[in-house]
């Protein structure tokens, strides 16, 4: 059993992975000499995007001779642009199609090292319809359970499952508002069980509408529409969590 706390972040990976945006801004104490009040700088929430597959691992073969690895990369780029515009800090486990890619364990290792607020694992398929949102299939801890002293690698996601479920609901609701069909579920898809952050696997499937032919996942408008809804949901979720933290901070006073 691999123990999460014993994992060290390899320097080689640190050189390979280039964060696309600066790290989350630290809250600076106000300067004593400044006479005019300074508006508080909004903190930048870190999002980790994991476009699945890549390199020799092509993933599913989709319509139009497309590979899943290309669709997940394209969707990653769209989502990253929208999230960056919405003042999120974003890291992607890959931004191109390299010859060798990180294994799922290495991707989880990167995510756990950077402590993102949210981890989104991106997939695409030709089966089913609409957008499938999956959280971990591990059994969530009971309310009375004490937090574990040691996180086991295979069940590292357990303590984040309530937050993952809440966030999946938020994204699902935003997709429904954007007139995109959504299916929420639980699945054990690597590396979701190894992540310590709230994690969701997002799977794009063909969009079956009123017409005879469904919209394929290669459709750029479909990808942009879905990415826009996810970015809206994450913005809403950030606003809520920020407001909740402010309320919690003010309550004792």
């Amino acid at each position, binding site marked *: 059993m691999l123990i999460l706390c014993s994992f060290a972040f390899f320097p080689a990976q640190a050189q390979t992975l280039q964060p696309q945006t600066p790290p989350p801004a630290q809250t600076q104490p106000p300067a004593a000499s400044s006479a005019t009040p300074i508006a508080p700088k909004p903190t930048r929430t870190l999002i980790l995007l994991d476009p699945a*597959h890549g390199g020799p*691992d092509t*993933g*599913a*073969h989709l319509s139009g001779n497309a590979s*899943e690895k290309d669709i997940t990369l394209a969707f990653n780029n769209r989502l990253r642009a929208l999230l960056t515009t*919405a003042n999120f800090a974003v890291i992607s486990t890959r931004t191109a199609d390299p010859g060798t890619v990180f294994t*799922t364990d290495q991707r989880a290792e990167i995510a756990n090292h950077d402590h993102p607020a949210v981890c989104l694992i991106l*997939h695409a*398929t*030709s*089966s*089913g*319809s609409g957008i*499938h949102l*999956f959280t971990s*299939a591990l*059994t969530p801890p009971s309310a009375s359970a004490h937090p574990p002293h040691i996180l086991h690698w*295979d069940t590292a996601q357990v303590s984040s499952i309530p937050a993952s479920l809440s966030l*999946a*609901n*938020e*994204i*699902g*609701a*935003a*997709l*429904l*508002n954007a007139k995109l069909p*959504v*299916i*929420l*579920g639980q*699945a*054990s*898809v*690597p590396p979701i*069980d190894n992540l310590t952050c709230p994690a969701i*696997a997002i*799977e794009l*499937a063909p969009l079956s509408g009123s017409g005879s032919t469904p919209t394929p996942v290669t459709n750029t408008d479909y990808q942009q529409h879905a990415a826009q809804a996810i970015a*809206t*949901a994450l*913005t*809403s979720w950030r*606003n*809520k969590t920020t407001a909740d933290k402010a309320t919690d901070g003010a309550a004792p006073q």
Partner: protein
Amino acid sequence: MIPRYQRVLFWSLIAGICLMAAFLIHGCRQAHQRLTAFNDTTPIAAPTTASTEEITLDVANDADGSISANQQQFALPQEPTLRARALLEHLLAEYALPASTHPLQSGPAVDDVFFVNLPITTPAAAASLSAATGLQQNKAHPARSAASSGQLAVVDLHGSFADNHPSGIQVEDLTVRSIIGTLHAAFPLVTEVRFLVNGQPRDTLNGHASLKRTYPAIDTATTPTPPETGATKQDDTHS
């Protein structure tokens, strides 16, 4: 100069040929559709003296991501491993039918099913001397948690089944959960399920659903619940 009656006859014959060709093409298409509608590749059940019994199959549906319990009558062997294998072959053959809600490729899928009593005990590494005989003896220790009880079902899938399975999180997860739910319904003593492919551990079924973990044997018949839309509608106007 071609006489008028010959020209009329010629064009009449041409029109007749065209009509017959159209009729022939239409008939061929209808026959093809009729034959493909009955393209059931399910092997015919071998004659057996065993009586049929009611069996619950947990059948997956790709359209809504649900799994529903489906009662069917068919004969199964009584020996547990043969029974489990025949049961799963029947389930997966259902998915190869043309009208399947979770279409999979036809062909052999399950190589074997084993049942192991829990907790699994293995010989301890450290040996001790027996007080009675003076010979070296090994103490048996549970290899898994003592909380594990019941039986572990090990399902060994064919490599061709895994390689040709449709690739995707939902479609692979539905297959795995359908197998687990069907085993749970037929074998109440089974508490855990593990998967092998060609007798070896494998990371995923076909790139997505994990086969490394041990799944709890539970009733997997579920319908996904839609997200609650109350909170987000207000936030859309804000963002």
